[in-house]
């Protein structure tokens, strides 16, 4: 089987104050190597929880997740972190406010005893398009887009094969979003990455992903290929209503842009 990430009947249940909240209900999906897969849904649909379950930040209460054929166990295998990394939604919350960019980027190297950290940090900054003069700045001296670049650089420090992207651009301005999406696409080509991306913005998902899973209330609603989305070829009502709400994100052809 060539599928790189396989999720089989995954359920995630949180116990909150004696109540059981099922955030993800029996969701299955599979992502091929170097593919880019999108999860779409509204808040509370469980799309982010799937990402968090993969990397162990949420408990797997049913079903299983396999990465390259290896089943994930309660305690993640040692090579897991060098294989899967995550980029978080809010670049203002995902960088340690009291660590310099240098410390943030060299921390994974220190954890894994990888030497030559100076050169690697400089190269990582270059890779995400930040000048090396940013190396010893603190996060509060950076703009949102620059912080998200740092977060991406950090995720790539251990040279993972899979990048989990949790709404990586929803906190950013439109023009900065374009830059970050371009950066992610370039890095995917250069590093041969597999993306599993969560977003509420159908246009962003359409731009980035080959296949899409629509989710609602923790369950999978419908899987769509990219062509289905553009031609509004959905089977379920929910997917159609989601699409209709994003109608103003369709490709328009303003007179100036027809080139």
């Amino acid at each position, binding site marked *: 089987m060539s599928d790189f990430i396989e999720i089989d009947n995954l359920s995630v249940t949180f116990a909150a104050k004696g109540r059981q909240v099922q955030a993800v209900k029996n969701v299955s999906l599979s992502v091929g190597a170097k593919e880019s897969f999108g999860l779409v849904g509204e808040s509370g649909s469980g799309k982010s929880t799937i990402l968090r379950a993969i990397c162990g930040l949420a408990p797997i209460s049913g079903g299983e997740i396999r990465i390259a054929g290896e089943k994930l166990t309660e305690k993640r295998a040692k090579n897991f972190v060098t294989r899967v990394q995550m980029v978080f939604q809010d670049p203002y919350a995902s960088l340690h406010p009291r660590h310099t960019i240098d410390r943030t980027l060299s921390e994974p190297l220190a954890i894994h005893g990888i030497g030559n950290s100076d050169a690697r940090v400089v190269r990582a900054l270059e890779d995400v398009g930040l000048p090396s003069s940013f190396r010893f700045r603190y996060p509060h001296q950076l703009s949102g887009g620059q912080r998200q670049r740092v977060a991406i650089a950090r995720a790539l420090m251990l040279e993972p094969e899979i990048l989990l992207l949790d709404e990586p651009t929803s906190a950013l301005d439109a023009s900065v979003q374009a830059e970050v999406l371009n950066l992610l696409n370039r890095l995917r080509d250069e590093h041969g990455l597999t993306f599993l991306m969560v977003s509420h913005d159908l246009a962003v998902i359409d731009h980035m992903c080959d296949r899409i899973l629509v989710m609602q209330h923790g369950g999978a609603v419908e899987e769509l290929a990219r062509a289905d989305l553009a031609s509004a070829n959905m089977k379920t009502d929910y997917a159609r209503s989601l699409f209709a709400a994003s109608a103003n994100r369709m490709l328009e052809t303003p007179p*100036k*842009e027809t080139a």
Partner: protein
Amino acid sequence: MSLLEIENLRVTFETETGPVQAVRGVSFGLGRERLGIVGESGSGKTITGRSVLRLIRPPGRIEADRMVFDGIDLTTASEKQMRALRGPRLAMVMQDPKYSLNPVMRVGAQLMEGLLRRDRLGRAEARKKAIAALEAVQIRDPERVMEAWPHELSGGMGQRVMIAMMLIPEPDLLIADEPTSALDVTVQAEVMAILDNLVRERGMGLIFISHDLRLVAQFCDRVLVMYHGRIVEELAAGDLMNARHPYTQGLLNCLPKIGGSREPLPGLDRTGDWANV
């Protein structure tokens, strides 16, 4: 008749490194219509909205050649006069309902507070009015929502409650600062439709502040595009796609589109002369 007129509005913040101008000479007029203000973060759009209510705290400073709301000069109005204006005549809806509702008061009590204190209505009548307001924003079971705590409401519900609360005194001008950015797209459409309806029916003026060009174009009559504390372009909403200014064009082009090509998205070119005004 013009409801609000602003000429050469400037907002300056004193910082350690000297004064920073967040709004640098903004002028516009508003009738009983829907005006959109669009811009990226830091463009001064929120501060412009807050200045109308004079809600800028020191070290911020508001200056304007003219700022008149329905014949009242806002630049010289006393703080007491401003308090009388805020609410009954000028209302504001903020981005996140989570931070705008008092978490330790039931929704109903918050809705009725103004009616009881300001309008000196009886409890029964205030309650009736509050429920009517909730119905106006299409909340299905207003009785239950009246008894709910703010944390029990979803984002869309909370934002509707906020809008209902702002609309109870029937203001003449509503300033909505990114009222739907924290909401899901389907909810967003509903909330916008509610706002739209209310403006039409009651003949209010609406200033709709957002970073989302397309949303603004859909719901407003006129759009102001702000960059770096200035208005760079003013457009009728229908003409948005024919925007002249390179910044507006850049904002439109850098958005990914469903069914668009997979080419790298065009970035916003900030090297033109316009960027250094």
